[in-house]
C-alpha cells in the first residue's frame, strides 16, 4: 500500500497545487499596476487597487454585510424547507414521488435567467423586489436543489429507525429533532449548508433582478470591474470574497463542532 500511498499523495498534491496556486497568483494581481510581457513578475506595484476597494464611500462594507446576511438567511431558509422535503422524499413512498424529486432538481436544469425572469413578475406583484427577503427567496430557489439532493440521500441511507426508536423511548418531537435527527444528519446538513452559502454568495444576475440594485452584494460590485477589464480591482474583491466565504464556513463548522463535540470534516 505504501507505493500506492505515495502515488496517491503525488496525484493529490499536484491537484491541490493546481487548485491553490492560481489563487496565489491572483493575490499578486491585486497589487500589480504594470506587468509587461514577457516578465515573470510585475514591473510596477501599487496599493491603489486595494485602497480603492476599501475606500469608505465604495459601499464595500455595506455589500459585504448584505452578502453575508443574505447567505446566512438563505442557508437557514433552505434548510428549513429542505429538511422536511428531503425527509419526505427520502423516507416515504407516495404517488408522484419521482415527479416531485425531478421537480426539485428543475432550477438546476433551467437557465437561471429564465427562472429569475419568471419569478421577477410574481415578486413585483408581491412587492418583494428590492427587499432582502426577496433576494433570499430567489437565492433559495437555486440552493434548494443542492440541499434537497444531499439530504434526500442522507435520509435514504439512515432510514427511519432511529427516530422511531427515540419516539418509542418517549421523546417529544422537539427532542427527537434536536437529539436524534439533527446529529444524525449533521454531515449532510453541513454540506447542504455549505453549498447553500456558496451558491447564495456567488449569485449575480438574480440579486440584480430581484434586488433591483437596492441590495448591494459583493458580486454586484466586482462583476462590472471584471467585465471592463479592471482585473486588479476584481482580484481584490475576489480575495475579499474568498476569505469571507472561508471565514464564514470555518465559523459555522467551529460552532457546530463545539455544539455536537464531534469531528465532522468539512464536506461541501
Amino acid at each position, binding site marked *: 500500500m505504501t507505493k500506492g500511498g505515495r502515488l496517491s499523495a503525488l496525484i493529490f498534491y499536484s491537484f491541490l497545487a493546481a487548485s491553490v496556486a492560481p489563487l496565489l497568483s491572483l493575490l499578486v494581481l491585486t497589487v500589480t*499596476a*504594470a*506587468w*509587461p*510581457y514577457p516578465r515573470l513578475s510585475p514591473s*510596477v506595484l*501599487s496599493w*491603489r*487597487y486595494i485602497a*480603492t476597494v476599501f*475606500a469608505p*464611500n*465604495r*459601499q464595500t462594507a455595506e455589500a459585504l454585510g448584505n452578502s453575508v446576511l443574505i447567505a446566512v438567511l438563505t442557508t437557514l*431558509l433552505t434548510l*428549513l*424547507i429542505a429538511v*422536511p*422535503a428531503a425527509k*419526505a422524499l427520502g423516507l416515504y413512498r407516495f404517488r408522484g414521488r419521482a415527479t416531485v424529486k425531478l421537480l426539485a432538481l428543475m432550477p438546476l436544469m433551467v437557465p437561471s435567467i429564465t427562472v429569475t*425572469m419568471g419569478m*421577477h*413578475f410574481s415578486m*413585483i*406583484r*408581491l*412587492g*418583494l*423586489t*428590492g*427587499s*432582502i*427577503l*426577496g433576494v433570499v*427567496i430567489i437565492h433559495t430557489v437555486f440552493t434548494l436543489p443542492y440541499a434537497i439532493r444531499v439530504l434526500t440521500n442522507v435520509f435514504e441511507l439512515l432510514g427511519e429507525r432511529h427516530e422511531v426508536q427515540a419516539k418509542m423511548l418517549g421523546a417529544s418531537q422537539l427532542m427527537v429533532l434536536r437529539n436524534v435527527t439533527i446529529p444524525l444528519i449533521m454531515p449532510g446538513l453541513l454540506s447542504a449548508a455549505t453549498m447553500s452559502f456558496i451558491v447564495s454568495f456567488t449569485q449575480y*444576475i438574480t440579486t*440584480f*433582478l430581484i434586488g*433591483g*440594485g*437596492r441590495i*448591494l452584494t459583493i458580486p*454586484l*460590485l466586482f462583476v*462590472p*470591474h*471584471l*467585465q*471592463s*477589464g*479592471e482585473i486588479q*480591482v476584481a482580484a481584490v474583491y475576489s480575495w475579499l470574497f474568498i476569505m469571507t466565504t472561508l471565514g464564514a464556513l470555518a465559523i459555522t463548522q467551529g460552532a457546530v463542532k463545539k455544539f455536537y463535540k464531534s469531528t465532522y470534516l468539512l464536506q461541501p
Partner: protein
Amino acid sequence: MKRVFLGISLLMIVVLSAACARPTATVASDNFADALQAARGKTVTFYGWGGSSAVNSWFDDIVAPSLLAEYGVTLRRVPMNIDQILNKLTAEKQAGDVKGDIDVIWINGENFYTAKQQGLLYGPFADRVENFTRLIDPAASDTKYDFGVAIGGMSAPLGRAQLVFMADSARLATFPASAEELLALARANPGRFTYPAPPDFTGSAFVRNIIYEIVGFDAINNVAADKDAIYDIIKPALDFLNELEPYLWEAGRTYPPDVASLDRMFAEGQILWAMSYTPLQAAQLIAKNEVPATTQTFVFAEGNIGNTHYVAIPFNSPNKDAALALIHHLTSVAMQTAKLDVNNWGDLPVLDINRLSAEERSVLQGVDIGRGVLPIDELLRRRLPEVHARKVAIIEELWRERVLLR
C-alpha cells in the same frame, strides 16, 4: 409538511408587508426652485455602468459630497449595466409597478431608443433643469439627437465620448491616418492589429468608422434601416474588413471579445494599437504606469465617430425632484470641469463654451488633460456623428455574418 410550508409562507407574508412600506412615485415639482427645495434631505439613486474605477471615483468622491453640500441630497450609486436596468424597468412596467428604485440612469444610443420606444422614461424634463437651459447649446446636434434618435428632452447630455486610437510612438513610427493606411500598416506588421468584435461597443464603433471611411457617412445615414439595403451600401466596407482580416491578430480567425481584452493586449505589447471611447484614456493609463509614457492618441484624418452619453429619469423614479437636482448638478461647470480632469475621469464636457462666463471658461480650459492625448478642440473638429441606433444592430449582425463567420 403541508403545515410547515403554510407556516413559512405566512411568515413570509408578514415580514414582507413590513418590508414593502416604500415611497410612492412622485411627480416632479413644476418650478425648478421648488424642486430643489423638495429634494433637500432626499436620497437620489443613480444607476449606471460601474466598471471603471475612474468613473466610480468621480461619482463617489466628487459628485456625491458636493451634491450633499450644495443641495442636501444624498447620492447612492448602484453599478448596473444598462441592459439590466432596462430589463428591470421593462418588467416593472409590465407588472404595472409604479414604485421604482431608480431615479437617474446613464444611457445612450440603442438603449435610449429602446427605453424611449417602450415608454420607460419620464419626461420631457430637460427644459426644467436650470444648468441645461443655461449652459447647453439647444441647437447642437447631440442635444437634439442621440444616435439619430430624437431626444425631445427625455434625456440630458452628461459627457462626450469619441472613438480614438492609441499606439506607442516608440514602437510604431507612423500612425495610420485612414483605413487604407491602416491596411498597409497591418500588411507590414501581420498579427499586430485587431479590433474588438461587435457587439462590443467600441468594436462596433470601429466598424462604423471604417464604413464612414469607405462609403461615407451620408450613404449609411440616408439608407433605410433595412438589412438588405444596408448590406448593399456597406458591402465595400465589409470587403475592406475582409481584406484586412488575414493581417490581423490570429489571422482574423478570432477577435478579442471586448475592448478590455484589446487594451490588455496592447498594454502587454502583444499588439501595436488600442482603441477607446474615452478620448483621454491614454493620459490615465500613462499616469497609472499601465502603458509606456510614449503612448500617443490619434484619429483618422477624416475624423472618428463621437457620441454623447446622457442621463435620464425612469418613468417610475420615486424621487423625481432629487433626480432633477442631480442632473442639474452633473451639468454644472464645476462637475463638468472635474469630470474632464484625467485624474478623475477624463470625459469631455457637454457645455457650450460660448455660454460660459469668462471665468468659467478659464476654469474649464485650465484643466490639465495629461500626456499622450489630442487637444479637445482637435477632437471636436474631427468628430463624426452616429447613425441611427437601429442601424447599429443591423450593421453588427452583418459584420458577424459577412466578416466573422465568412
